[in-house]
């Protein structure tokens, strides 16, 4: 019914999911419906890549997929 991810970045940021800014933040377990999603970060555009397409599968809240952004 749901998949789970954690977005990693060196700073605390709000997470943008499928082009929409959300109250979810980096370093939190995020609940998503199954399927492909586009993940990015809010705020300063000092991260790379600018967005990531992910299709998490078989995750759980204890074993979420990690989506990592680095300082650009």
């Amino acid at each position, binding site marked *: 019914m749901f998949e789970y991810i954690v977005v990693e970045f060196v700073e605390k940021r709000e997470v943008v999911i*499928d082009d*929409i800014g*959300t*109250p*979810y933040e980096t370093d*939190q377990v995020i609940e998503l419906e*199954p*399927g492909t999603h*586009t993940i990015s970060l809010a705020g300063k555009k000092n991260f790379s890549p600018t967005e990531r397409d992910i*299709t998490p599968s078989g995750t759980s809240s204890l074993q979420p997929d990690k989506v990592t952004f680095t300082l650009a």
Partner: protein
Amino acid sequence: MMKKIPVIGVLLCLLILSGCAHYLVNDPKPEYQADYGYRYLPWKQTVKEDEVYVALALSGGGTRAAALSYGVLQKLKATPIRDDSTTLLDEVDVISSVSGGSFTSAYYGLFGEQLFSDFKTDFLYRDIEGELTRKLYAPTNWFRLMSPDFNRIDLAIELYDETVFQRKTYQDLIDAGRKPFIAINATNLTTGAQFTFTQPAFDLLGSDLSSLPVARAVASSSAFPILLSPVSYQNHPASAGFELSRDMRHGLANGYDGPNARRYLWAYNQSIYHTDKAAHPYVHLMDGGLSDNIGVRYIVDNFSRTSGFLSLRKPKIKELVVIIANAKTLPPESLDENESPPNLLDVLYKTTTISMDNYSFESIQVLKDMLHISESAAKLILRCQAIIDQYCSSGHQLTISGHQYKVTVIELNFLNIDDPEKRQRLLSMPTSFKLSRPQVDELINVGGELLDESAAFQELLKRIR
């Protein structure tokens, strides 16, 4: 010959009058504006209000459903919370409604607490069926009904518009503050999917919902098959600047065989009105009960989809409450007493209601399962962390969930009534827009009583009172 002239004159006058019959079309919206119209407010504007998030689902079932819904709203108004500083009714954030329930939700959305002083006489106590029949038999309307642009449902729309909703439009709902957000649900006859009267749905039609009479949406939501004709809308050219949302595009790209067939079908059934306008120049809507007679699917979709207003609020919600006013009946059945098979009418009735009832039941279970899985997923991390803290000296910290809420789902159903006679009386009440005053009053009382008797409701009150 002289006698014929007045007759012809009268007929001509009637034909001219029939020319006045109007076919209300939805206005075009030449340019898309992301924040325009009747859409849910951005989450940043409602952070404080969303801590206790209350969603209501009001089912179909004619006046029976409208009265039960009224009783629930009345009970919420009589339920003080936060040290009596407000009531639970003020905490209601969204009302998703179908058919009969849509009369109550739309009236409350437009007129607020005027509902409790005027709605009984404006709607619940009225013989709407009788009034519609009289309109149908009025000779002036015969000629209007001969026009291809005027149908039986248009008579109903006129009646609701003039005598219930005071010619209010969706702009009036916007002006009323969108708290709660009113989601009136109908069924798209082509796709079989739920159609919800919101600007995002009208964006796909290149149309402006703001000028649409609320009565037309309610009539679409309650246009019972055969008795009433479908309500038609125009699919206008695409608004400049509009494009499908990213989650819709992902849903389509993943395909039916992909990781989420539900999202694919949701995306497909809506997107065709934007991507293939030539094949779908119109959309025809009927009773919302055909696709979801409870109104919970709108809540399920907005909890699941990443563009959904509930999905976007998950991290800010502390108490997530869904109250379902389900006016489903279960009249005594005698089919099994006869050796001969049921007659054609019985078979027709069963054919239209059995699948709807089964789907409604499963929709409620899907909602309950989904919310409890979400709640448990967050709790699981905290429980594991507690075990780590107790038995391991490593100091390992798990990543906690971005959402942490307590879920309460309450289904108000006549089956929950203890008194066997009262239960059977309510389970046998007809689906009609004409009930007696005692029937309406009993339904209103039952709405409040069922809520009051719910253990989950009392537990919720202990936490938020």
